[in-house]
Each structure stands twice: as C-alpha cells, then as structure tokens.
C-alpha cells in the first residue's frame, strides 16, 4: 500500500456515505426513514461534485435537492395520512430469485469499473460558473431552452391530474 492519500480517503468517505444511505433509502421499512436516509445520499453526491471541482453543481445540488426537493418529500410524507402503516403484502417475494442476478450484475459493473482503462483528465480547481454560463448560451442552448418547454408541460400535466382529484373530492 502506498502512503496515506487524503484525496482518495475523502473520495471513499463520500462515496461510502452516498452508497450506505442509498441502501437505507431502498431497504428501510418506514418511508419516513427512507426520506431521511435520502438526505445522506443527496449530501454525499453534493460532496462528490465538490470533490471533483464542480463547485456550482455541488452548491446547486445542496440548494435544490436538499433545500427544496427533500424538504418537499418530507412534507409530503408527514402530511399524508397513514403512509407509514401501509402493509406491503409481498415483502420477501422474489428475494431468492432476484438476489443472484443482482449480485452478478453488481460484480459485472464493479469489474467493468475497475478494469476499463478510462481516459483520465486532471481536475483543475477553478470556478466553473463562467464556463457553465457560456455553455448554456452557446453549445448547450438547445437543451437548456427545450427543458423549459418540457418543465412547463410537466407542470400543466401535473395540474390537470391534480385538478381532477380535487374536483372529485369537491374541493375547488
């Protein structure tokens, strides 16, 4: 083993936090615990972004996913009646059939990740906001603008569905 490498240490720490809390999200029986475990996952991912030199992306992840979406999810969970008491009738079905393929795919992914000669580039510690802004108005203008149409229509669609549910209950 080589000498202690702080970069690698931080990477594995962040990756570990992310993966373990992601497992918590998937495996927790209580949906409230799942929602809280999501905090670790999202924060871990934000840490990874910062670690890789994507400063803006990391902060945006913190603000939007943890500050916005996670809080929204928590509200939804807490305000929904009896969501914690949902009885899942087929908890263990498929575990025996599903486990071997899952393990095999996992092994394959790990093997591919370790064996492939990835072309590496040095992370340059510099602010990325200027470059991002340029990209959004230059070579990535099309996706940037198209997403706005998609989001608008997703909102309209969500409203159509929600409005009906409200009407059925007699709420206006």
């Amino acid at each position, binding site marked *: 083993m080589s000498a202690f490498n702080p970069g690698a240490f931080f990477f594995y720490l962040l990756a570990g936090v992310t993966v373990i809390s992601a497992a918590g999200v998937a495996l927790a029986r209580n949906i409230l615990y799942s929602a809280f475990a999501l905090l670790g996952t999202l924060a871990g991912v934000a840490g990874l972004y910062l670690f890789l030199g994507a400063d803006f992306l990391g902060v945006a992840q913190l603000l939007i996913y943890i500050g916005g979406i996670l809080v929204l999810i928590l509200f939804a969970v807490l305000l929904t009646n009896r969501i914690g008491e949902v009885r899942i009738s087929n908890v263990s079905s498929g575990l025996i059939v599903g486990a071997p393929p899952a393990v095999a795919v996992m092994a*394959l*992914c790990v*093997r*591919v990740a370790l*064996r*492939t*000669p*990835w*072309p*590496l*580039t040095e992370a340059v510690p510099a602010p990325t906001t200027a470059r991002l802004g340029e990209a959004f108005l*230059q*070579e*990535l*203008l*099309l*996706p940037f603008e*198209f*997403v706005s*149409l*998609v989001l608008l*229509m*997703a909102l*309209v*669609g*969500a409203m*159509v*569905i929600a*409005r*009906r549910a409200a009407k*059925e209950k007699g709420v206006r």
Partner: protein
Amino acid sequence: MLDNAHSLRAFLPELIVAGTVLAVLFVDLLARRPHVGRAAALTAVGLVAAGAATVMTMRADGYGLFFGLIARDPLADFFKLLFLATNLLVVLISLRAREATDESAAEFFALTLTTTAGMMLMASATDLLTAFLSLETVSIMSYVLAGFRRRSRESAEAALKYVIYGGVASGVMLYGMSLLYGLAGSTSFTAVRLACAHTPAAATVLLAVVLCLAGFGYKIASVPFHMWCPDVYQGAPTPVTAFLSVGPKAAGFALLVRFFGGSLPAELVGAPAPWPILLGLIAAATMTVGNLAALAQTNLKRLLAYSSIAHAGYVLLALCAGGSDGTRAILLYLVTYLFMNLGAFLVIIAVADAGIGEEIAEWRGLGRRAPWAAVAMAIFLFSLTGLPPLAGFFGKFYVFAALLARGGSLMVTLAVIGILNSAVSLYFYARVLKAMYFEAPTVDEPLPLARLHAATLALLAVPTVALFLVWSPLQRFVDSSLGQWYPAEMRPRSAQLDRSVKRSSVQLANTSATK
C-alpha cells in the same frame, strides 16, 4: 455544422410545434369556456404548418445543428413527417373521444404536441444529451397522457406503472450512457463511436450498450422491458393508446437507428461487434412473447398491446439486419404500421362511441350490426398479420428480404422465427374476425357510426389497401430518406472536442502500452 443563430431556420418545424403548444394553452386561457373543436383546429393548423416547414426546408444532405447536438438530414425529416402525420390523425381520432378531451381538451392537445416535439428531437439526436432529453420528454408527456382518463382506477394504475417502469429504465440507460461518456470524454455520438472503436475494453462497451438498450427497449416495448405495455395500453384513454403505440415506438426506432448507425462501431477490438446477435435475441424474444401472450387475451386493447409488442419485434429484426436494406425495411414498416395500427384502435373508439365495449365477446355479430366498421377492422387486422393484398405484407416482406439479403445462419434462423410468429399472429387476429362475422349478436339492431369516425376510418383504410397497389412512390421517398445516412458522415461537435478525442485516444494507447 451550424451555430445557434444559423440553426434556427432548419429548426423551424420544431419551433412551430413548440409555438403551437403555447398558442393552444393561451387561447384556452383567454377564452371563456373550453372548446374541443377550437383546440383541435389550432393543433391541426400547427401540425400542418410544421409539416410544410419540414418539406420546405428539406435538403438532400445532412448537416449538424446547434453545434452538432442534433442533425438535420433526410432520415430525420422522414421521421418528423411521420410523427406530425401521427399526431394529426390522433387529433382526428380524439375529437369525439370523451374520455380524452372531455374537460381538458387544450391540455390534452398541448401534451400530444409536446410529445411530438420530443419525438422530432429524438429522431434527430446525434448526442447522448439530446437523446436522453428527448426520450425523457416523450416519457414524461406519455405518463400524463396515460393517466388522462377521468375517475378511472385503471387509468391511474396505468400512469403509475408507466412512471415507475419508466424511471427504472431511464436510470439504467443513464448508467450505460455514463459508461460511454467515460470512455469518450464527450457525449457526441461521433466521439463515442471513435472511443468505442479504439478502446481495448470490449466488455465495457458491451455493458454500456446493453444498459442503454434498457431505455430504448422500454420506449419500443421490447422484451424484457414490455411488462408495462398491456396495462398502460388498456388503462389509458384509447386515443392515447393509439398514439403511444405508434408515435413513441417509431421515435424509439429512430433513436436506435441513429445509436447503432452513428455511435457504435461495427468492430470491437478487431472482431466484428456482437450487435446483430444481441438485437436478434431481443427481436426473437419480443416477437414470440408478444404473439404467444396475445393468444390468451379477451380484451381488444390488451390484445393489440401484445400485438404491438410483437410488431416491435419484427422491426427489431430489420434493425438486426442493419445496413441500408435493414433501415429501409424499418422505415417502410413504420409507415404501414402507422395506418393499420391507428386504424385498428380507431375502430375500437368508433365502436365504443356507439356503446360497445372492448371485450371481444361484445363484438359478436359486429359484421351485421356495423358492416363498414367490421370491414375496416378486417382490413387492419389482415394487414397487421402481413397478408397480401394489404400494405402490411410489404412491410414484413422487406424485413424478411433484408434478413435474407444479409445472409448467414443467424439471419436465416431469425427470418424463420419471424415467419412462424406471423402464422401464430393470424390465429388471434382471426379470433376477432370470427367474433365479428361468425358469431350471432346478442342484439340485432344496427350500430350507427359517427360521420367523423367513418371518414377517418376511410382515411386510414384506403392507404392500407392502396399502398399495396401503389407502392413505388413510398419506396422512392424512403430511399431518398436513406440517401445521406449511408455512409454516416457527421463530424464531432467542435475543434475542442476533436482535440479531446485525440487526447483520450493517445492516453488510451499509452495506458495499454504501459501494461
């Protein structure tokens, strides 16, 4: 390759569709009460204008738009016209379908228009980023459309299943795309192709492609990503089902053609790439599962859902044959499929409008009660089977011809499986015909068809027959759409990208040398 400002002219069709989305919504907001006809008319005008713009800005060569994120070439134009026509027909189909346009007609048409815009982008994507973005656009809009039926548990269930399966498929596909990006250091199809051709890690490319196929396979409903299909097709409003079974499926194939033709090399580490075997396996499984499961169905929408899975299998056969022959077969098949499949769903809608449900048992004696609807259904079903003298025959003929022209034991085996499957499909299509013609109806009174439905049925049935008789114009059009695609010629996004590709291949060479 054009920059943003210069791309706008060639991007006019998509701009018109996007503008129509906003126009439909705003007019509905300003008007006092919602009106189905007004929203439909606006939508139709926008679609026709977009089609005219496509034809007017068509060029025989291909070129990149928006720094190479998408391409404008005859292949993309072909698919754009196909999607616009599909959406236009769906507007006609849904005019009288109360389950879709009862309360929120403007929103319904705006959602289909956005789906069309997404499909148009899908057909022209030459970059993993635009490919993913457009695929998600189509998916998200489809989720809402599937859940559009009011007060219906099945519709809500369909939408939810669609969302969950779709989320998983997208996630898996993103992982595959991230592997490709990791190899190439760029999201452009050309750069990915270069990197995959030069990497010594064949297993990585293979895994990435299989994972990407999860996303594409989900869109075209191929095995093993077909489980959502019957539930969604049954639960969604029938016009939406008709739309989903033709539009997004064709868009998925457009993306597959571009992905396999534009971003994957024919050789991996010096050996021929195993794409034909991979696609052949999926195609054979898709056809067989679709046709065998359709045998047991009693609900017509479910039956057509399984049949559409099987048809995705036939088109995958053509993709597996590859080359210009295979791609020609895909395009021809999709055109014939547009008419016969939309037609079959329209008969269900027209008959449902007159009060008959979706169970085959309810269709007994339809030949006597609604002779024209029954004749139209017979035409569409025979065409779906692939029997002459109907358009579906040529669709299948070109698929099998492409396989046999390619030659080799794999291709011949696949052709045989395909033909056996067609024979199986005749059985369940014929069951519907038997119910319509050879079983006595419970009530004898004639079923009047709405005039609009009768006219639209004629609009779909006539091409299904006429395309068989007058095939050469369509074939000429398809051949001209293929012109520039073979051999594929697209350049990386920018000079900077060129450098990064070179740098990474140099690095690759170094790393493999040190080993």
